């Protein structure tokens, strides 16, 4: 018996190396990011986040234009993606015939599996010409009095990147909100029907108000995806360090400046400024993810959060 105990103990200790290595890894990533951005941290301090200059030649670095770009693109993307995504989720969960719902969910999963570089390719050759020739002239003509739709029309820019992001996060919003909606007890809906509610009344008043916390979780999770999305945005946002209200203007995001400039950063300070941007990205996405998971967990009792990549 004791021979078993020893061999078991050895096996158990050996196996414990793996989970501990995960803890070390996460801590190591944080440590490396902080350590490698020390030159920039010590030179610019917190002002890094509020400085709007990004001048590699003069070695004056500030992340504000990128923070601005990430905020604007994510916000516009959510504005577009949330109503559509939740709408499709409601349609799939409530209205669509079961076979249709199954096929559509499968196709939505397909949409989620497309690599982001392919979204970017499609963005360059299909979305951007469409923006340049159709959508942006239209917006400029009829809504040009708004500051968002003024300025030269390049096709590439903040609006194109926002629409791209919306397309990328819609599948996540659909699949998580669908699970949240399906998790609402059937009895609630049935009692609403019994009171003479139409399906939409039952949906909007009962199901959505019951599931709103979970859907909020889905939205925040999608926000995390949008903030961390690199390739598709980098390929069509135009890469221009600027802070402007115009959505037509080319811009830059936190993730895309790293993707574009990291390999060509020639000085130590330049590199550490880019790594500090990575640190900002890391911290923001951790906060966003923790928030989203708490919300989703509180609704589905931990069953579904793992269905989300």
């Amino acid at each position, binding site marked *: 018996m004791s021979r*078993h105990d020893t*061999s*078991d103990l050895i*096996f*158990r200790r050996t*196996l414990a190396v*793996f*989970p501990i*290595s*995960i*803890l070390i*890894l*996460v801590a190591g*990533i944080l440590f*490396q*990011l902080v*350590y*490698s951005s020390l030159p920039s941290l010590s030179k610019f301090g917190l002002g890094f986040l509020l400085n709007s200059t990004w001048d590699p030649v003069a070695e004056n670095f500030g992340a504000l234009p990128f923070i601005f770009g990430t905020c604007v693109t994510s916000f516009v993307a959510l504005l577009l993606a949330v*109503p*559509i995504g939740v*709408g*499709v989720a409601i*349609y799939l969960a409530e*209205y669509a015939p079961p076979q249709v719902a199954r096929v*559509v969910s499968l196709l*939505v999963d397909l949409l989620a*599996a497309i*690599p*982001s*570089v*392919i979204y*970017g*390719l*499609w963005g360059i*050759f*299909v979305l951007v010409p469409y923006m340049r020739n159709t959508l942006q002239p239209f917006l400029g003509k009829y809504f040009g009095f708004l500051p968002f739709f003024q300025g030269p029309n390049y096709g590439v820019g903040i609006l194109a990147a926002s629409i791209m992001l919306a397309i990328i996060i*819609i599948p996540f919003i659909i699949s998580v909100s669908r699970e949240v909606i399906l998790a609402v007890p059937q009895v609630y809906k049935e009692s609403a029907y019994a009171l003479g*509610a*139409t399906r939409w*009344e039952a949906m909007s*008043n009962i199901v959505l108000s019951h599931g709103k916390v979970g859907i909020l979780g889905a939205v925040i999770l999608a926000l995390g995806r949008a*903030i*961390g*999305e690199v390739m598709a945005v980098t390929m069509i946002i135009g890469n221009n360090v600027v802070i402007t209200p115009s959505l037509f203007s080319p811009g830059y995001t936190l*993730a895309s400046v*790293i*993707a574009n400039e*990291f390999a060509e950063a020639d000085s130590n300070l330049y590199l550490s400024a880019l*790594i500090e941007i*990575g640190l900002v*990205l*890391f911290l923001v*996405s*951790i906060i*966003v*993810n*923790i928030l989203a*998971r708490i919300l989703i967990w509180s609704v589905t009792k931990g069953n579904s*959060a793992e269905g989300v*990549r």
Partner: protein
Amino acid sequence: MKEMIQKAFDRTRLQREIWDKTMVAVLFLCALGVLFILFNILWHLIVEGISSLNFDFFIHLPKAVGEKGGGMANAIWGTLILLVLAVCVGVPIGLGTGVYLSEYAHYRFAYVVRFMTDVMNGIPSIVFGIFAYTVCVLPMKTFSALSGGFALGLMMIPMITRTSEQFVKMVPGQLREAGLALGIPQWRVILDVILPSAIGGIMTGVMVALARVAGETAPLLFTAFGNRYFSHSLTQPIAALPLQVFDYAISPFDDWHRQAWAGAVVLIVMVFLINIWAQYFVSSRKRWSTGK
């Protein structure tokens, strides 16, 4: 609630029915819009990609900058190498953690580890690239296949951990007890009884994780870096299909755009095939559990 009832009283039944039907129509249009985008992407991939695909694409190296013709044989090869390296990093850590969490872990420790894998899952891919750059590229003083595979492997860990924990937990308790009752030590039960039973599900998890990292570009930008030639050395920069698609897509040459579409088709077919292969393991696991 009160407002809802008040609203319902204010309208006639017909008005409410019309409103209901309108909303259904709007929701239906949303679904149609999403499907339209998907089919638009696939349509362009098929039209632009398949017409540019030819045999040369699979067996030739890229031609000199601006020259017509050539292929991406080196990139396909490089992606395969990177995926093998990623599996070497991701599978042992992911699987080991999954088994430990399900079989041994104290609940508080398990909670912490699960939380950390969730955190890892949310880290943007480019941050893994930076991490691999600081721990592999800087000390080795060169971009390399190793660092690229390392970055991709790290991204696989959270997904593999979750699925393997789940599937190991699903193995019926009787199997475990039967093994222990025979006097077999627990670690032999885990290795000889539980893992073989859960292997289908675990393989599915691995394949799904692999499909996800196969299309990743961002972590490779400054780790694997890309290479215009075949590379068989793990300590040299290596080409990868997503990287090459990216480079060609943002280039100014028409012929390179054509090849970017072709590369995209190959990449997406690869991703979909791995996903379908993953489903095969799930179904074989189901056969096992219904067959008992």
